[in-house]
């Protein structure tokens, strides 16, 4: 007998969902999903050491079907999420149904698969809400930024981000020898609001899963300040966004 769920959603873009699950699984153990009646699904995941946090917003347009009878907050372990998304193809339709206790993920492919998970107990402490004043923001082309991230995270333990009015530089922090520059001249830097140079070091292992998300995004904004968390805002097709925060090196 099938259950009646107050929330029933069908994702429009399976490819984005796959990349997202892949990235989140390598960072966090659990994800929390807020589903509003007004047509916004928000995913929040924070890693166990609270060094990084990822927020994803999918508006109603990101779904083929968005039926929400009442707002809901559920939690699921990333291990379960990865299990459900294993072997999912881009052309498969992924739907999510949930109530306060259960989350059901349905994969419409061959064969058709249905996964039922108990919702995780939501943390008593609030997920951190970050409101930071950033001295600089750079808008960059997603492709060269994704390549810079994947190249440097493959060789570096830490990456120095440096932003000035004309350039965003990513440099291997320990030896300072290898770097990638995104500049206005080469077209990879679209805009920089930094009035003076700002820089900070970030852990490469927390950036490497993000490069795949950058690659599928339509636009990327990099928010930076000396010694404060990095903020990456990535636009998604057809709509929606991913915001990623990463604490700086001590």
């Amino acid at each position, binding site marked *: 007998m099938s259950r009646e769920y107050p929330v029933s959603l069908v994702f429009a873009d399976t490819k984005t969902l796959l990349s997202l699950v892949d990235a989140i699984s390598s960072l966090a153990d659990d994800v929390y999903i807020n589903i509003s009646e007004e047509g916004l699904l928000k995913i929040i995941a924070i890693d166990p*050491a609270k*060094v990084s946090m990822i927020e994803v917003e999918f508006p109603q347009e990101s779904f083929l079907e968005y039926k929400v009878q009442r707002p809901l907050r559920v939690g699921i372990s990333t291990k379960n999420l990865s299990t459900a998304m294993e072997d999912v193809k881009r052309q498969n339709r992924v739907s999510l149904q949930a109530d306060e206790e259960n989350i059901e993920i349905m994969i419409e492919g061959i064969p058709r698969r249905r996964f039922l998970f108990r919702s995780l107990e939501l943390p008593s402490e609030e997920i951190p809400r970050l*409101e*930071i004043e950033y001295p600089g923001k750079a808008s960059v082309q997603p492709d060269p930024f994704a390549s810079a991230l994947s190249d440097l995270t493959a060789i570096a*333990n830490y990456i120095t981000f440096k932003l000035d009015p004309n350039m965003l530089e990513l440099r291997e922090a320990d030896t300072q020898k290898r770097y990638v520059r995104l500049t206005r001249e080469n077209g990879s830097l679209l805009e920089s609001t930094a009035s003076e140079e700002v820089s900070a070091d970030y852990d490469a292992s927390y950036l490497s899963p993000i490069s795949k998300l950058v690659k599928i995004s339509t636009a990327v904004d990099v928010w930076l300040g000396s010694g404060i968390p990095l903020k990456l805002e990535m636009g998604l097709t057809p709509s929606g966004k991913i915001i990623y925060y990463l604490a700086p*090196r*001590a």
Partner: protein
Amino acid sequence: MEKRSIVKIPSELCVRCRGSRYLCGLGYCPILVESFKRNIVSENILREEIKGSSPPTVFVGRIGYPNVMMYPSSPPLYGDTSYYERSDKWIELSLEEFLSLRLSLIRGGIKINVKKASDPDETLMKIHEMSISEKPVNIYMRLERPPRGGVLSEEIPPLGPWSPLKKIFIESNPKSNRYIEKVYYDHDLRSREAIIYLYSSGVDVNSISRVLSVGALGMRRNRKIVPTRWAITAVDSILSDHLLRSVKEMPVIDRFKVFIREIHRNLFIAILAPTKWMFEWGEAWFPGSTWNPWGSEAEIELDYEGFSGRDDYPSIGGCYYASRLAVAERLYTWRRQASAILWREIYPGFNIPVGVWFVRENIRKMLSEKPFETDSIEEALDYVKNILRVPLERWLKRSYVARLLLGRRLDDYLKR
């Protein structure tokens, strides 16, 4: 016959030291090892017939898998030889005593396909019979030639000389351990469940890995002989996973706890931190130690896992799981979870591999002692800074857990 030594030690040093001050820089005295060993395995004992009380000990090699060598072993003496297999007792011995003990275990080798365990022949039945015994078993081995060689390995405890086995006879009535006997005759019980059942019943991990290794566990048709080194790691891994499943749901410890143990030119350090489960095992091998004989500086190798554990095999090897089991056991006893930083420094002179038991037992022992307690990771690291010989900065550069504990977290930027 010419006797050769792999280490050249000036004779005048030995004369001055006489096995008491380790002037040669080694962690044990090679002359004492040789003489202890000779007391047990004298030249005239190394013949084609071996009689003795097997602790019981059976070693399975991994070369040629799935056709492997299996060696029932015994020292050439009768009596209570159970301490030959008791790793909890080995840490109370000097390295000389331990090495001479283990190197006097004489092995009779047979070549066998691992699948033979599902349909054992007469010889394998006898090996099973002795393996499931909880007391030493008197055996008589007829060998093809006088035994020679020996085993020194990072994963398994040392073993003495061997020769192909012609025939094995069991001369006493083995007294089966009732728990092992139960799982041995249960042909519908999976190995994993059998391992957990045996551990919960109080059977020590050495005995569990021995019975797994000889192919005495698992569903009847799937029973396989498992090379000893794989069996040891499998048991450490399965049991630590089993304990951690509960530990991860327990409350976190209240303060940072620092444990230190120095033994046989090895330094073990554990820092348990009041956060959810994370774990790292790091080893710094100094030049002149077992795995860094030619280096010019200490080489650090480290592996780790976050709260969800790991899916792949740690590059650092079996020590990772041996240490993880020791920590999981301690946390389980406390009914608490924590993140664990475990570092080991291996100094010049400790130049023989002795097996992962050395790590497991020393960490068990270390964690049973009284720790230094503090409220901050900075103070915990400050405490170990002067005890470590590798600069703390080098350790921190490789560390995963310490780096996470030290690093800035997003909490620091929370909206107040």
